[in-house]
């Protein structure tokens, strides 16, 4: 690299774009990205700018990397939560886009069609309340995990495709069918990957998932 530059082109365009950076551009996803895509994009972005990253040092200065990381966190902290995301979309997404693509607001759309078979825990009405419930949950049972996953519109197929964990194992986790569980070492690893993909703290889930305590 001949010489370090002051600012990258993309950062400039973000600075001038109205006054707020576009969170979707920062995470390099489409405005209609699903929850699983947002989580994956966030992990990849963090990975790109991590310390000693092979892919970042020759293109960006330390200062730029720090700035990028801050923006990535900022974007994720909004887009991660459906309620915050909807508010953000209302303010920042161009109005015509919503007209041409009606299902842009996928959350409300899906809610209408969502099968009533597994409602989120009683008394939960808004997304904000739901996220509060998630934050306060101490014990993640199979049913709780399932409702969180469904609330975030992540399908088991999505998780299976990304983690290469077979769908029957994922089902067993949610249904707490301990007879079908693989040996504990695998089970812990599966649970971790599953938890990460639905946006939960893996360790918290592993520590509190009830059937795991009985597993030797």
């Amino acid at each position, binding site marked *: *690299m*001949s*010489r370090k*530059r002051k*600012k*990258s*082109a*993309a950062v*400039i*365009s973000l600075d*001038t774009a109205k006054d707020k950076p576009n969170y979707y551009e920062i995470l*390099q996803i489409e405005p209609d990205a699903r929850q699983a895509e947002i989580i994956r994009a966030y992990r*990849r*972005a963090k*990975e*790109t700018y991590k310390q000693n*990253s*092979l*892919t*970042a*040092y*020759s*293109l*960006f200065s330390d200062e730029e990397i720090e700035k*990028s990381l801050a923006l990535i966190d900022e974007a994720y902290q909004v887009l991660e939560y459906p309620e915050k995301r909807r508010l953000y979309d209302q303010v920042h997404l161009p109005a015509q886009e919503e007209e041409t693509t009606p299902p842009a607001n996928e959350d409300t759309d899906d809610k209408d069609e969502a099968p009533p078979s597994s409602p989120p825990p009683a008394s939960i009405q808004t997304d904000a309340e739901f996220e509060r419930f998630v934050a306060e949950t101490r014990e993640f049972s199979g049913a709780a995990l399932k409702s969180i996953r469904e609330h975030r519109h992540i399908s088991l197929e999505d998780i299976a495709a990304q983690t290469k964990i077979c769908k029957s194992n994922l089902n067993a986790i949610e249904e707490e069918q301990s007879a079908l569980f693989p040996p504990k070492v695998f089970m812990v690893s599966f649970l971790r990957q599953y938890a990460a993909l639905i946006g939960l703290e893996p360790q918290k889930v592993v520590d509190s998932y009830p059937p795991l305590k009985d597993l030797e």
Partner: protein
Amino acid sequence: MNTLKLVDSPEQPGHLPEEGRRPPKILAVGGGKGGVGKSFIAANMGIALAKTGKRVVLVDLDLGGSNLHTCLGLGHINTTMSDFFTAPRYPINDLIVDTNIPHLSLISGASNTLDIANLQHFQKTKIIRNLPKIETDYVILDLGAGTAYNTLDFFLAADCGMVTVTPEPASIENSYRFIKSVFMRKLRSNQISSELREVIHQIMMQHHAGGRRLKTLADFFEETEKADPLTAAWIRSELENIRIQLVVNQVLDSGDIEIGHSFKVACKTYFGIGIDYAGYLHHDPTVLQTLRNKKPFLLENPKSRLSISLERIAHTMSERVVK
């Protein structure tokens, strides 16, 4: 990633119908640094496509350092690219030699002529002009290391270009430099419409009119963005059309595989231009042994993980080149 599906037209092994010969699809294998596996990948991708019944011609354009024939297990070759310049109307199809592998042939770069490494402008354009005349389904160009104009122009002549990196700093730095050079070269090439080229020229030459002197591609985009965001978007989409396909070679673990994703993210942030992550290839210690034995890897170890990944990447490339 989906399961492997290589044979897409089982009823038609090989030859295309003769109704008005279609030009071949041209793939290039490049990437800044030497020794990252360009020739190895080109050769084995050729074998993989040939195995599906497609006709493939490998073209060794690493003139002066050519060894594509070695990766195929071939010895001395009599007809090479040097012969192309011995007569004004030498047909490019006469340069094609057999490889002993069904459906796969080669235009070798190996030559003892001293000046073949330094192609003159008319020689380069002669090659580029004639590539679409090769009678085959796929042409795979094996490019040399570095960012010489000849290499960049061959890369841009392809319908789809692969950039090969290995998970180590020098290779990644060189690949960024290669991609930048490809972009810069394209902005000045006749692949860009003359009116847009005029705009680009004015921005690049603005320092003559008292403007700022532009040294990097990022500087260029910064200035263009300032002048007119729409033009900047247009230029970006022109560059995105190159459809660079990244392949990470010699990966050892999942961290190395992630490098491809990070590379893609960094390119998008730095250039504002998307590239594709076409796949990765595992490090395999038996490669060295088969190369020493002068045997084609994919045929020697057809069941190995590396061979399967090579076939998958060949399939991906053949799909990307269609769109």
